[in-house]
Protein backbone atom coordinates (compact mmCIF):
# COMPACT_ATOMS: atom_id res chain seq x y z
CA UNK A 1 0.00 0.00 0.00
CA UNK A 2 1.15 3.48 -0.85
CA UNK A 3 2.37 5.40 2.20
CA UNK A 4 -0.13 8.23 1.58
CA UNK A 5 -3.01 5.75 1.60
CA UNK A 6 -1.52 4.05 4.62
CA UNK A 7 -1.46 7.29 6.59
CA UNK A 8 -4.99 8.14 5.43
CA UNK A 9 -6.21 4.75 6.60
CA UNK A 10 -4.58 5.14 9.99
CA UNK A 11 -6.19 8.56 10.47
CA UNK A 12 -9.59 7.14 9.52
CA UNK A 13 -9.34 4.33 12.05
CA UNK A 14 -7.93 6.67 14.69
CA UNK A 15 -11.07 8.83 14.38
CA UNK A 16 -13.60 6.03 14.02
CA UNK A 17 -16.43 7.95 15.64
CA UNK A 18 -15.99 11.08 13.57
CA UNK A 19 -15.64 9.03 10.44
CA UNK A 20 -18.81 7.12 11.26
CA UNK A 21 -20.75 10.35 11.84
CA UNK A 22 -19.56 11.86 8.57
CA UNK A 23 -20.28 8.61 6.73
CA UNK A 24 -23.74 8.49 8.26
CA UNK A 25 -24.40 11.99 6.95
CA UNK A 26 -23.45 10.97 3.44
CA UNK A 27 -25.46 7.76 3.76
CA UNK A 28 -28.64 9.60 4.72
CA UNK A 29 -28.09 12.40 2.22
CA UNK A 30 -27.49 9.86 -0.50
CA UNK A 31 -30.56 7.78 0.39
CA UNK A 32 -32.80 10.86 0.52
CA UNK A 33 -31.43 12.12 -2.77
CA UNK A 34 -32.04 8.88 -4.62
CA UNK A 35 -35.39 8.34 -2.92
CA UNK A 36 -36.69 11.80 -3.74
CA UNK A 37 -35.54 11.65 -7.34
CA UNK A 38 -37.10 8.23 -7.91
CA UNK A 39 -40.27 9.54 -6.27
CA UNK A 40 -40.37 12.60 -8.53
CA UNK A 41 -39.88 10.43 -11.57
CA UNK A 42 -42.73 8.15 -10.56
CA UNK A 43 -44.99 11.10 -9.75
CA UNK A 44 -44.23 12.54 -13.17
CA UNK A 45 -45.01 9.25 -14.83
CA UNK A 46 -48.23 8.77 -12.91
CA UNK A 47 -49.44 12.28 -13.67
CA UNK A 48 -48.59 11.97 -17.35
CA UNK A 49 -50.24 8.57 -17.45
CA UNK A 50 -53.40 10.28 -16.16
CA UNK A 51 -53.04 12.81 -18.96
CA UNK A 52 -52.50 10.11 -21.58
CA UNK A 53 -55.68 8.32 -20.56
CA UNK A 54 -57.58 11.21 -22.08
CA UNK A 55 -55.07 12.98 -24.31
CA UNK A 56 -53.10 11.90 -27.32
CA UNK A 57 -49.55 13.19 -27.50
CA UNK A 58 -50.62 15.60 -30.23
CA UNK A 59 -54.08 16.80 -31.25
CA UNK A 60 -54.48 18.18 -34.77
CA UNK A 61 -57.50 20.40 -35.27
CA UNK A 62 -58.66 23.50 -37.06
CA UNK A 63 -58.03 26.60 -35.05
CA UNK A 64 -60.71 29.29 -34.85
CA UNK A 65 -59.90 32.23 -37.08
CA UNK A 66 -60.72 35.77 -36.06
CA UNK A 67 -62.20 38.13 -38.62
CA UNK A 68 -59.79 40.75 -39.98
CA UNK A 69 -60.59 44.45 -40.03
CA UNK A 70 -61.95 45.48 -43.40
CA UNK A 71 -59.65 48.46 -43.77
CA UNK A 72 -55.97 47.68 -43.52
CA UNK A 73 -54.88 51.23 -43.15
CA UNK A 74 -52.87 52.17 -40.08
CA UNK A 75 -53.34 55.89 -40.74
CA UNK A 76 -57.08 55.63 -40.26
CA UNK A 77 -57.32 56.53 -36.64
CA UNK A 78 -60.95 56.02 -35.80
CA UNK A 79 -61.73 52.72 -37.37
CA UNK A 80 -64.13 50.75 -35.25
CA UNK A 81 -63.67 47.03 -35.52
CA UNK A 82 -65.18 44.16 -33.65
CA UNK A 83 -63.31 40.96 -34.42
CA UNK A 84 -65.32 37.78 -34.16
CA UNK A 85 -64.69 34.11 -34.68
CA UNK A 86 -65.35 33.39 -38.32
CA UNK A 87 -68.40 31.22 -38.67
CA UNK A 88 -66.54 28.65 -40.73
CA UNK A 89 -66.89 25.00 -39.93
CA UNK A 90 -64.17 23.60 -37.67
CA UNK A 91 -63.74 20.36 -39.54
CA UNK A 92 -60.58 19.05 -41.07
CA UNK A 93 -60.84 19.02 -44.84
CA UNK A 94 -59.85 15.77 -46.50
CA UNK A 95 -58.96 13.98 -43.23
CA UNK A 96 -57.66 10.86 -44.96
CA UNK A 97 -55.02 12.78 -46.82
CA UNK A 98 -54.04 14.67 -43.68
CA UNK A 99 -53.72 11.35 -41.86
CA UNK A 100 -51.47 10.01 -44.64
CA UNK A 101 -49.30 13.10 -44.42
CA UNK A 102 -48.93 12.81 -40.66
CA UNK A 103 -48.07 9.13 -40.90
CA UNK A 104 -45.05 10.02 -43.02
CA UNK A 105 -43.40 11.59 -39.97
CA UNK A 106 -40.90 9.07 -38.60
CA UNK A 107 -41.71 9.80 -34.96
CA UNK A 108 -45.39 9.02 -35.31
CA UNK A 109 -46.72 5.70 -34.03
CA UNK A 110 -50.52 6.02 -34.10
CA UNK A 111 -52.80 8.40 -36.00
CA UNK A 112 -56.53 8.22 -35.59
CA UNK A 113 -59.42 10.55 -36.33
CA UNK A 114 -61.83 11.51 -33.60
CA UNK A 115 -65.14 13.31 -33.31
CA UNK A 116 -66.01 14.76 -29.91
CA UNK A 117 -69.59 15.65 -29.22
CA UNK A 118 -71.12 17.06 -26.07
CA UNK A 119 -74.11 14.99 -25.12
CA UNK A 120 -76.68 14.34 -22.47
CA UNK A 121 -76.95 10.78 -21.22
CA UNK A 122 -80.61 10.08 -20.51
CA UNK A 123 -81.92 7.17 -18.55
CA UNK A 124 -85.48 7.55 -17.44
CA UNK A 125 -85.65 10.87 -15.63
CA UNK A 126 -81.96 11.20 -14.81
CA UNK A 127 -79.75 13.16 -17.13
CA UNK A 128 -75.98 13.62 -17.07
CA UNK A 129 -73.99 15.83 -19.39
CA UNK A 130 -70.76 14.57 -20.82
CA UNK A 131 -68.63 13.93 -23.86
CA UNK A 132 -69.12 11.09 -26.29
CA UNK A 133 -65.93 10.45 -28.18
CA UNK A 134 -66.31 8.93 -31.62
CA UNK A 135 -63.34 6.72 -32.35
CA UNK A 136 -62.05 3.88 -34.48
CA UNK A 137 -61.96 1.35 -31.62
CA UNK A 138 -58.76 -0.53 -32.50
CA UNK A 139 -56.74 2.63 -33.07
CA UNK A 140 -58.18 4.37 -30.04
CA UNK A 141 -57.20 1.40 -27.93
CA UNK A 142 -53.66 1.55 -29.28
CA UNK A 143 -53.59 5.18 -28.29
CA UNK A 144 -55.23 5.28 -24.86
CA UNK A 145 -54.91 1.65 -23.84
CA UNK A 146 -58.60 1.63 -22.94
CA UNK A 147 -58.76 -2.16 -22.75
CA UNK A 148 -56.66 -2.19 -19.60
CA UNK A 149 -59.15 0.06 -17.81
CA UNK A 150 -62.27 -1.96 -18.66
CA UNK A 151 -63.95 -3.33 -15.53
CA UNK A 152 -66.97 -4.89 -17.16
CA UNK A 153 -67.79 -5.93 -20.71
CA UNK A 154 -65.33 -5.51 -23.53
CA UNK A 155 -63.95 -2.57 -25.47
CA UNK A 156 -63.49 -4.56 -28.66
CA UNK A 157 -67.24 -5.24 -28.91
CA UNK A 158 -67.54 -1.65 -30.06
CA UNK A 159 -66.07 -2.68 -33.43
CA UNK A 160 -68.72 -5.25 -34.15
CA UNK A 161 -71.53 -3.25 -32.59
CA UNK A 162 -72.28 0.04 -34.43
CA UNK A 163 -74.72 1.00 -31.69
CA UNK A 164 -72.40 0.11 -28.88
CA UNK A 165 -71.13 2.49 -26.21
CA UNK A 166 -68.43 2.15 -23.59
CA UNK A 167 -69.11 4.37 -20.58
CA UNK A 168 -67.23 5.53 -17.54
CA UNK A 169 -67.85 3.75 -14.27
CA UNK A 170 -69.23 6.94 -12.72
CA UNK A 171 -71.98 7.15 -15.31
CA UNK A 172 -72.79 3.49 -14.84
CA UNK A 173 -73.26 3.81 -11.07
CA UNK A 174 -75.18 7.07 -11.25
CA UNK A 175 -77.55 5.75 -13.88
CA UNK A 176 -77.56 2.23 -12.56
CA UNK A 177 -76.39 0.75 -15.85
CA UNK A 178 -74.75 -2.60 -16.49
CA UNK A 179 -73.43 -4.13 -19.68
CA UNK A 180 -76.34 -4.95 -22.00
CA UNK A 181 -78.52 -2.02 -20.88
CA UNK A 182 -79.68 0.66 -23.26
CA UNK A 183 -78.65 4.28 -22.90
CA UNK A 184 -80.16 7.22 -24.70
CA UNK A 185 -77.95 10.11 -25.87
CA UNK A 186 -79.02 13.58 -26.96
CA UNK A 187 -76.45 15.64 -28.82
CA UNK A 188 -76.07 19.39 -28.89
CA UNK A 189 -77.45 19.28 -32.41
CA UNK A 190 -80.66 17.76 -31.02
CA UNK A 191 -80.12 14.28 -32.37
CA UNK A 192 -81.47 11.54 -30.17
CA UNK A 193 -80.15 8.03 -30.34
CA UNK A 194 -80.16 4.95 -28.20
CA UNK A 195 -76.97 2.98 -27.62
CA UNK A 196 -76.25 -0.33 -26.01
CA UNK A 197 -73.71 -0.44 -23.19
CA UNK A 198 -71.00 -2.95 -24.22
CA UNK A 199 -68.32 -1.98 -21.74
CA UNK A 200 -67.57 0.06 -18.63
CA UNK A 201 -64.16 1.56 -17.92
CA UNK A 202 -62.54 2.84 -14.78
CA UNK A 203 -59.66 5.22 -15.50
CA UNK A 204 -59.38 6.29 -11.85
CA UNK A 205 -59.68 9.85 -13.05
CA UNK A 206 -62.91 11.01 -11.49
CA UNK A 207 -63.89 13.59 -14.11
CA UNK A 208 -63.43 11.10 -16.93
CA UNK A 209 -65.24 8.25 -15.21
CA UNK A 210 -68.20 10.53 -14.52
CA UNK A 211 -68.66 11.97 -18.00
CA UNK A 212 -66.81 10.23 -20.80
CA UNK A 213 -67.99 7.56 -23.19
CA UNK A 214 -66.62 5.99 -26.36
CA UNK A 215 -68.76 5.33 -29.42
CA UNK A 216 -68.04 4.48 -33.02
CA UNK A 217 -66.85 7.28 -35.27
CA UNK A 218 -69.88 6.91 -37.55
CA UNK A 219 -72.31 7.18 -34.62
CA UNK A 220 -70.59 10.36 -33.48
CA UNK A 221 -70.86 11.79 -36.96
CA UNK A 222 -74.57 11.01 -36.96
CA UNK A 223 -74.99 12.71 -33.58
CA UNK A 224 -73.51 15.78 -35.24
CA UNK A 225 -75.78 15.39 -38.26
CA UNK A 226 -72.69 15.06 -40.41
CA UNK A 227 -71.30 12.69 -42.98
CA UNK A 228 -68.32 10.35 -43.00
CA UNK A 229 -65.85 13.11 -43.83
CA UNK A 230 -66.69 15.11 -40.74
CA UNK A 231 -63.62 14.90 -38.48
CA UNK A 232 -62.94 17.49 -35.79
CA UNK A 233 -59.69 16.11 -34.43
CA UNK A 234 -56.91 13.91 -35.63
CA UNK A 235 -55.01 12.53 -32.67
CA UNK A 236 -51.41 11.47 -32.94
CA UNK A 237 -49.14 9.43 -30.71
CA UNK A 238 -45.38 9.52 -31.12
CA UNK A 239 -42.42 7.49 -29.95
CA UNK A 240 -41.22 9.82 -27.21
CA UNK A 241 -43.96 11.97 -25.66
CA UNK A 242 -41.35 14.54 -24.59
CA UNK A 243 -40.84 15.43 -28.26
CA UNK A 244 -44.51 16.29 -28.71
CA UNK A 245 -43.86 20.02 -29.14
CA UNK A 246 -41.25 19.62 -31.86
CA UNK A 247 -43.16 16.94 -33.74
CA UNK A 248 -46.33 19.00 -33.37
CA UNK A 249 -44.62 21.94 -35.02
CA UNK A 250 -43.53 19.74 -37.92
CA UNK A 251 -47.05 18.40 -38.35
CA UNK A 252 -48.47 21.88 -38.19
CA UNK A 253 -46.05 22.93 -40.92
CA UNK A 254 -46.98 20.19 -43.37
CA UNK A 255 -50.72 20.05 -42.73
CA UNK A 256 -51.51 23.70 -42.05
CA UNK A 257 -53.67 22.74 -39.08
CA UNK A 258 -53.00 23.53 -35.46
CA UNK A 259 -51.10 20.66 -33.84
CA UNK A 260 -51.29 21.00 -30.10
CA UNK A 261 -48.92 19.02 -27.89
CA UNK A 262 -50.19 17.40 -24.71
CA UNK A 263 -47.97 19.75 -22.74
CA UNK A 264 -49.79 22.78 -24.19
CA UNK A 265 -53.17 21.19 -23.64
CA UNK A 266 -52.35 20.43 -19.98
CA UNK A 267 -50.35 23.49 -19.29
CA UNK A 268 -51.17 23.86 -15.61
CA UNK A 269 -50.41 20.24 -14.80
CA UNK A 270 -47.16 20.35 -16.73
CA UNK A 271 -46.05 23.53 -15.00
CA UNK A 272 -47.06 22.02 -11.67
CA UNK A 273 -44.87 19.02 -12.37
CA UNK A 274 -42.04 21.28 -13.41
CA UNK A 275 -42.30 23.24 -10.17
CA UNK A 276 -42.33 20.05 -8.15
CA UNK A 277 -39.27 18.80 -9.97
CA UNK A 278 -37.37 22.03 -9.46
CA UNK A 279 -38.13 22.11 -5.75
CA UNK A 280 -37.42 18.40 -5.37
CA UNK A 281 -34.11 18.56 -7.20
CA UNK A 282 -33.08 21.61 -5.23
CA UNK A 283 -33.96 20.15 -1.85
CA UNK A 284 -32.39 16.77 -2.53
CA UNK A 285 -29.21 18.36 -3.87
CA UNK A 286 -28.98 20.63 -0.85
CA UNK A 287 -29.34 17.67 1.48
CA UNK A 288 -26.47 15.98 -0.30
CA UNK A 289 -24.48 19.18 -0.07
CA UNK A 290 -25.09 19.35 3.69
CA UNK A 291 -23.72 15.82 3.96
CA UNK A 292 -20.67 17.12 2.13
CA UNK A 293 -20.29 19.84 4.75
CA UNK A 294 -20.15 17.11 7.38
CA UNK A 295 -17.10 15.62 5.72
CA UNK A 296 -15.63 19.06 5.16
CA UNK A 297 -15.98 19.89 8.84
CA UNK A 298 -14.47 16.72 10.13
CA UNK A 299 -11.57 16.90 7.70
CA UNK A 300 -10.89 20.49 8.63
CA UNK A 301 -10.74 19.39 12.24
CA UNK A 302 -8.40 16.53 11.40
CA UNK A 303 -6.11 18.91 9.52
CA UNK A 304 -5.93 21.22 12.55
CA UNK A 305 -5.31 18.31 14.90
CA UNK A 306 -2.63 16.81 12.69
CA UNK A 307 -0.85 20.01 11.84
CA UNK A 308 2.34 18.79 13.54
CA UNK A 309 2.23 15.56 11.54
CA UNK A 310 1.77 17.53 8.35
CA UNK A 311 4.74 19.74 9.22
CA UNK A 312 7.10 16.84 9.90
CA UNK A 313 5.89 14.92 6.85
CA UNK A 314 6.62 17.93 4.68
CA UNK A 315 10.01 18.38 6.33
CA UNK A 316 10.79 14.74 5.59
CA UNK A 317 10.03 15.20 1.92
CA UNK A 318 6.29 14.74 1.39
CA UNK A 319 5.15 17.02 -1.40
CA UNK A 320 2.03 19.16 -1.39
CA UNK A 321 0.22 16.65 -3.57
CA UNK A 322 1.10 13.80 -1.18
CA UNK A 323 -0.57 15.73 1.62
CA UNK A 324 -3.59 16.43 -0.61
CA UNK A 325 -3.84 12.72 -1.35
CA UNK A 326 -3.70 11.78 2.31
CA UNK A 327 -6.73 13.90 3.11
CA UNK A 328 -8.70 13.43 -0.09
CA UNK A 329 -8.31 9.68 0.35
CA UNK A 330 -9.93 9.99 3.78
CA UNK A 331 -12.81 12.00 2.37
CA UNK A 332 -13.34 9.58 -0.48
CA UNK A 333 -13.20 6.56 1.80
CA UNK A 334 -15.91 8.06 3.99
CA UNK A 335 -17.80 9.18 0.90
CA UNK A 336 -17.67 5.80 -0.81
CA UNK A 337 -18.83 4.00 2.33
CA UNK A 338 -21.62 6.55 2.74
CA UNK A 339 -22.62 6.25 -0.90
CA UNK A 340 -22.75 2.45 -0.74
CA UNK A 341 -24.81 2.61 2.45
CA UNK A 342 -27.06 5.25 0.94
CA UNK A 343 -27.68 3.19 -2.18
CA UNK A 344 -28.56 0.19 -0.04
CA UNK A 345 -30.89 2.21 2.17
CA UNK A 346 -32.58 3.79 -0.84
CA UNK A 347 -33.02 0.36 -2.41
CA UNK A 348 -34.65 -0.98 0.73
CA UNK A 349 -36.90 2.08 1.10
CA UNK A 350 -38.03 1.94 -2.50
CA UNK A 351 -38.70 -1.79 -2.53
CA UNK A 352 -40.76 -1.53 0.64
CA UNK A 353 -42.76 1.53 -0.42
CA UNK A 354 -43.45 0.13 -3.87
CA UNK A 355 -45.71 -2.39 -2.18
CA UNK A 356 -47.56 0.06 0.01
CA UNK A 357 -51.09 0.69 -1.25
CA UNK A 358 -52.14 4.29 -0.73
CA UNK A 359 -55.42 4.08 -2.64
CA UNK A 360 -57.29 6.84 -4.42
CA UNK A 361 -56.35 7.77 -7.95
CA UNK A 362 -52.78 6.77 -7.17
CA UNK A 363 -53.02 3.12 -6.13
CA UNK A 364 -49.58 1.93 -5.04
CA UNK A 365 -47.06 4.38 -3.64
CA UNK A 366 -45.62 6.04 -6.74
CA UNK A 367 -41.91 5.24 -6.70
CA UNK A 368 -39.77 3.23 -9.03
CA UNK A 369 -36.20 2.09 -9.42
CA UNK A 370 -34.44 4.18 -11.97
CA UNK A 371 -30.83 3.39 -12.80
CA UNK A 372 -30.01 6.84 -14.08
CA UNK A 373 -31.25 8.50 -10.87
CA UNK A 374 -29.14 6.08 -8.85
CA UNK A 375 -26.10 6.80 -11.00
CA UNK A 376 -26.68 10.53 -10.79
CA UNK A 377 -26.89 10.28 -7.01
CA UNK A 378 -23.68 8.26 -6.82
CA UNK A 379 -21.95 10.70 -9.15
CA UNK A 380 -23.00 13.79 -7.19
CA UNK A 381 -22.27 12.05 -3.90
CA UNK A 382 -18.72 11.29 -4.95
CA UNK A 383 -18.13 14.71 -6.50
CA UNK A 384 -19.33 16.44 -3.36
CA UNK A 385 -17.19 14.24 -1.10
CA UNK A 386 -14.22 14.87 -3.32
CA UNK A 387 -14.54 18.63 -2.95
CA UNK A 388 -15.43 18.35 0.72
CA UNK A 389 -12.07 16.62 1.09
CA UNK A 390 -10.15 18.67 -1.42
CA UNK A 391 -10.52 22.07 0.24
CA UNK A 392 -9.25 21.01 3.69
CA UNK A 393 -6.56 18.93 1.95
CA UNK A 394 -5.36 21.94 0.01
CA UNK A 395 -5.19 23.90 3.23
CA UNK A 396 -3.09 21.11 4.71
CA UNK A 397 -0.82 21.06 1.68
CA UNK A 398 -0.12 24.77 2.14
CA UNK A 399 1.07 24.35 5.73
CA UNK A 400 4.53 25.88 6.08
CA UNK A 401 6.51 23.49 8.30
CA UNK A 402 8.88 26.23 9.43
CA UNK A 403 5.98 28.15 10.91
CA UNK A 404 4.90 25.07 12.87
CA UNK A 405 8.41 24.22 14.11
CA UNK A 406 8.95 27.76 15.43
CA UNK A 407 6.05 27.41 17.87
Amino acid at each position, binding site marked *: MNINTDIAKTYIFAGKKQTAVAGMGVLLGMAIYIFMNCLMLALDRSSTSVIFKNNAHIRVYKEDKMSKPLVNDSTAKYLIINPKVLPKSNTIINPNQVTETILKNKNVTVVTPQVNSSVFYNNGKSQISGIAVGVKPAEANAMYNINSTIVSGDFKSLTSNPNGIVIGVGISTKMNLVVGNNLNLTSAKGVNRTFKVVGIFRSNVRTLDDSKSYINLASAQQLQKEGALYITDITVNIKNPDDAKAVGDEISQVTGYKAESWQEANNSMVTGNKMRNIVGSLVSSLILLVAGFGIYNILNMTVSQKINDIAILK*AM*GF*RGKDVVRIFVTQALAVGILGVIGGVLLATVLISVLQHVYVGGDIGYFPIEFDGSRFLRGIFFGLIITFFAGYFPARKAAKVD*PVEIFRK
Partner: protein
Amino acid sequence: MKSILKTQLVNKFFHDPNEFHVLKDISIEVDKGELVTLVGKSGCGKSTLLYILSTMDRDYKGDLYLDNELMTHKSIDELAAIRNEKIGFVFQFHYLLQEFSCLKNVMIPALRLGKLSPQEIEAKAYERLKTLGLADQALKNASKLSGGQQQRVAIARALINDPLIIMGDEPTGNLDSKNTAIVFEIFKDLAHNAGQTIIAVTHDEDFAQKSDRIIEMKDGMII
Protein backbone atom coordinates in the same frame (compact mmCIF):
# COMPACT_ATOMS: atom_id res chain seq x y z
CA MET B 1 37.73 16.86 3.28
CA LYS B 2 34.68 16.91 1.08
CA SER B 3 32.40 19.90 1.54
CA ILE B 4 28.81 18.82 2.14
CA LEU B 5 27.07 22.06 3.04
CA LYS B 6 28.03 25.59 2.09
CA THR B 7 26.41 29.03 2.28
CA GLN B 8 27.59 32.18 0.56
CA LEU B 9 26.51 35.55 1.93
CA VAL B 10 23.12 34.39 3.12
CA ASN B 11 20.92 37.24 4.32
CA LYS B 12 17.41 37.07 5.63
CA PHE B 13 14.86 39.66 6.56
CA PHE B 14 11.60 39.47 8.44
CA HIS B 15 9.10 42.07 7.34
CA ASP B 16 6.43 41.45 9.90
CA PRO B 17 5.78 43.20 12.29
CA ASN B 18 8.85 45.36 11.57
CA GLU B 19 11.59 45.15 8.98
CA PHE B 20 14.21 43.02 10.73
CA HIS B 21 17.57 41.90 9.33
CA VAL B 22 17.78 38.56 11.11
CA LEU B 23 20.73 36.91 9.28
CA LYS B 24 23.67 38.96 8.06
CA ASP B 25 26.17 37.71 5.46
CA ILE B 26 26.30 34.14 6.68
CA SER B 27 29.04 32.18 4.91
CA ILE B 28 29.83 28.80 6.39
CA GLU B 29 31.08 25.48 5.16
CA VAL B 30 30.65 22.06 6.75
CA ASP B 31 32.58 18.96 5.72
CA LYS B 32 31.54 15.36 5.45
CA GLY B 33 31.76 13.47 8.73
CA GLU B 34 31.80 16.60 10.90
CA LEU B 35 29.79 17.02 14.06
CA VAL B 36 29.15 20.73 14.23
CA THR B 37 27.21 22.60 16.89
CA LEU B 38 25.58 25.97 16.38
CA VAL B 39 25.42 28.09 19.54
CA GLY B 40 24.45 31.59 20.56
CA LYS B 41 22.03 33.50 22.73
CA SER B 42 18.35 32.91 22.36
CA GLY B 43 16.94 34.94 19.48
CA CYS B 44 20.26 35.37 17.66
CA GLY B 45 18.97 33.50 14.60
CA LYS B 46 20.17 29.92 15.01
CA SER B 47 16.86 28.28 14.19
CA THR B 48 16.28 30.67 11.33
CA LEU B 49 19.64 29.72 9.83
CA LEU B 50 19.00 26.02 10.35
CA TYR B 51 15.66 26.22 8.49
CA ILE B 52 17.46 27.83 5.56
CA LEU B 53 20.19 25.18 5.63
CA SER B 54 17.48 22.50 5.67
CA THR B 55 15.94 23.93 2.44
CA MET B 56 12.55 24.32 4.17
CA ASP B 57 12.85 28.11 4.18
CA ARG B 58 13.35 29.44 0.67
CA ASP B 59 12.90 33.10 1.50
CA TYR B 60 16.52 34.37 1.76
CA LYS B 61 19.23 36.10 -0.25
CA GLY B 62 22.57 34.45 -1.08
CA ASP B 63 23.45 30.92 -2.11
CA LEU B 64 23.11 27.54 -0.46
CA TYR B 65 24.95 24.45 -1.69
CA LEU B 66 24.14 20.95 -0.54
CA ASP B 67 26.47 18.20 -1.68
CA ASN B 68 27.93 20.79 -4.13
CA GLU B 69 24.57 21.37 -5.70
CA LEU B 70 22.97 24.81 -5.67
CA MET B 71 19.71 24.65 -3.72
CA THR B 72 18.66 28.27 -4.15
CA HIS B 73 15.86 28.70 -6.71
CA LYS B 74 14.91 25.02 -6.77
CA SER B 75 11.19 24.30 -6.72
CA ILE B 76 9.35 23.22 -3.60
CA ASP B 77 8.81 19.69 -4.91
CA GLU B 78 12.45 19.31 -5.96
CA LEU B 79 13.56 20.41 -2.52
CA ALA B 80 11.12 18.00 -0.88
CA ALA B 81 12.67 15.14 -2.83
CA ILE B 82 16.18 16.28 -1.86
CA ARG B 83 15.25 16.53 1.84
CA ASN B 84 13.67 13.10 1.69
CA GLU B 85 16.87 11.54 0.43
CA LYS B 86 19.66 13.65 1.90
CA ILE B 87 18.55 15.29 5.14
CA GLY B 88 17.38 13.88 8.45
CA PHE B 89 15.65 16.05 11.07
CA VAL B 90 15.61 15.96 14.83
CA PHE B 91 13.82 18.69 16.75
CA GLN B 92 13.43 19.59 20.40
CA PHE B 93 9.99 18.03 20.16
CA HIS B 94 9.95 14.56 18.65
CA TYR B 95 7.13 15.10 16.10
CA LEU B 96 6.30 11.41 15.95
CA LEU B 97 2.95 10.42 14.42
CA GLN B 98 0.98 9.41 17.50
CA GLU B 99 -1.27 6.78 15.89
CA PHE B 100 1.62 4.81 14.42
CA SER B 101 3.95 2.29 15.96
CA CYS B 102 7.55 3.31 16.50
CA LEU B 103 8.56 1.00 13.70
CA LYS B 104 6.12 2.58 11.27
CA ASN B 105 7.25 6.06 12.25
CA VAL B 106 10.80 5.13 11.40
CA MET B 107 9.73 3.54 8.12
CA ILE B 108 7.75 6.53 6.78
CA PRO B 109 10.60 8.51 5.13
CA ALA B 110 11.89 5.34 3.46
CA LEU B 111 8.44 4.40 2.22
CA ARG B 112 8.19 7.88 0.72
CA LEU B 113 11.59 7.45 -0.93
CA GLY B 114 10.49 4.07 -2.27
CA LYS B 115 13.94 2.73 -3.10
CA LEU B 116 13.57 -0.44 -1.06
CA SER B 117 10.72 -2.88 -0.72
CA PRO B 118 8.48 -2.49 2.34
CA GLN B 119 9.98 -5.69 3.79
CA GLU B 120 13.53 -4.39 3.41
CA ILE B 121 12.50 -1.06 4.89
CA GLU B 122 10.92 -2.77 7.86
CA ALA B 123 14.05 -4.81 8.49
CA LYS B 124 16.21 -1.72 8.21
CA ALA B 125 13.96 0.32 10.52
CA TYR B 126 14.04 -2.47 13.06
CA GLU B 127 17.83 -2.57 12.79
CA ARG B 128 18.03 1.19 13.46
CA LEU B 129 15.74 0.90 16.48
CA LYS B 130 17.89 -1.94 17.78
CA THR B 131 21.09 0.12 17.55
CA LEU B 132 19.32 2.84 19.51
CA GLY B 133 18.28 0.34 22.17
CA LEU B 134 14.60 0.36 21.28
CA ALA B 135 14.15 -3.11 19.81
CA ASP B 136 11.57 -4.06 22.43
CA GLN B 137 9.59 -0.86 21.82
CA ALA B 138 9.30 -1.26 18.05
CA LEU B 139 5.66 -2.30 17.89
CA LYS B 140 4.42 0.01 20.62
CA ASN B 141 2.50 3.13 19.73
CA ALA B 142 4.79 6.15 19.63
CA SER B 143 2.64 7.92 22.21
CA LYS B 144 3.32 5.18 24.78
CA LEU B 145 7.07 5.86 25.09
CA SER B 146 9.03 8.08 27.47
CA GLY B 147 10.44 11.39 26.26
CA GLY B 148 13.99 10.04 25.92
CA GLN B 149 12.77 6.99 24.02
CA GLN B 150 10.62 9.10 21.71
CA GLN B 151 13.60 11.30 20.89
CA ARG B 152 15.62 8.22 20.01
CA VAL B 153 12.82 6.99 17.75
CA ALA B 154 12.91 10.40 16.07
CA ILE B 155 16.65 9.96 15.55
CA ALA B 156 16.11 6.50 14.09
CA ARG B 157 13.59 8.03 11.71
CA ALA B 158 16.10 10.73 10.73
CA LEU B 159 18.61 8.00 9.92
CA ILE B 160 16.47 5.59 7.91
CA ASN B 161 17.41 6.94 4.47
CA ASP B 162 21.11 7.19 5.33
CA PRO B 163 21.06 10.97 4.83
CA LEU B 164 24.18 12.98 4.13
CA ILE B 165 23.28 15.43 6.87
CA ILE B 166 21.33 15.22 10.09
CA MET B 167 20.06 18.55 11.33
CA GLY B 168 19.00 19.04 14.92
CA ASP B 169 17.34 22.09 16.49
CA GLU B 170 18.07 21.63 20.18
CA PRO B 171 17.71 17.87 19.84
CA THR B 172 18.52 17.34 23.49
CA GLY B 173 16.57 20.36 24.73
CA ASN B 174 13.93 18.24 26.44
CA LEU B 175 16.21 15.47 27.69
CA ASP B 176 17.87 14.85 31.03
CA SER B 177 21.68 14.62 31.20
CA LYS B 178 21.70 10.84 30.89
CA ASN B 179 19.63 10.85 27.72
CA THR B 180 21.58 13.85 26.40
CA ALA B 181 24.76 11.84 26.76
CA ILE B 182 23.19 8.91 24.90
CA VAL B 183 22.12 11.15 22.00
CA PHE B 184 25.56 12.77 21.83
CA GLU B 185 27.21 9.37 21.60
CA ILE B 186 24.87 8.39 18.80
CA PHE B 187 25.69 11.56 16.87
CA LYS B 188 29.41 11.17 17.39
CA ASP B 189 29.29 7.61 16.19
CA LEU B 190 27.30 8.58 13.11
CA ALA B 191 29.76 11.32 12.21
CA HIS B 192 32.98 9.53 12.91
CA ASN B 193 32.12 5.99 11.97
CA ALA B 194 29.32 6.29 9.40
CA GLY B 195 30.67 9.46 7.82
CA GLN B 196 27.43 11.36 8.20
CA THR B 197 27.40 15.06 8.90
CA ILE B 198 25.65 16.48 11.94
CA ILE B 199 24.63 20.09 12.46
CA ALA B 200 22.97 20.69 15.78
CA VAL B 201 21.76 23.85 17.44
CA THR B 202 22.30 23.52 21.16
CA HIS B 203 22.20 25.45 24.41
CA ASP B 204 24.07 22.68 26.19
CA GLU B 205 27.60 23.94 26.89
CA ASP B 206 28.94 20.45 27.52
CA PHE B 207 27.38 19.07 24.33
CA ALA B 208 28.92 21.88 22.29
CA GLN B 209 32.35 21.53 23.84
CA LYS B 210 32.51 17.84 22.93
CA SER B 211 31.59 18.48 19.26
CA ASP B 212 34.15 18.76 16.44
CA ARG B 213 33.48 22.43 15.79
CA ILE B 214 31.39 25.18 17.31
CA ILE B 215 29.86 27.86 15.15
CA GLU B 216 28.87 30.76 17.34
CA MET B 217 26.31 33.35 16.38
CA LYS B 218 25.49 36.76 17.70
CA ASP B 219 22.79 39.09 16.45
CA GLY B 220 22.49 37.28 13.15
CA MET B 221 26.19 37.05 12.45
CA ILE B 222 28.82 34.35 12.77
CA ILE B 223 31.56 35.22 15.23
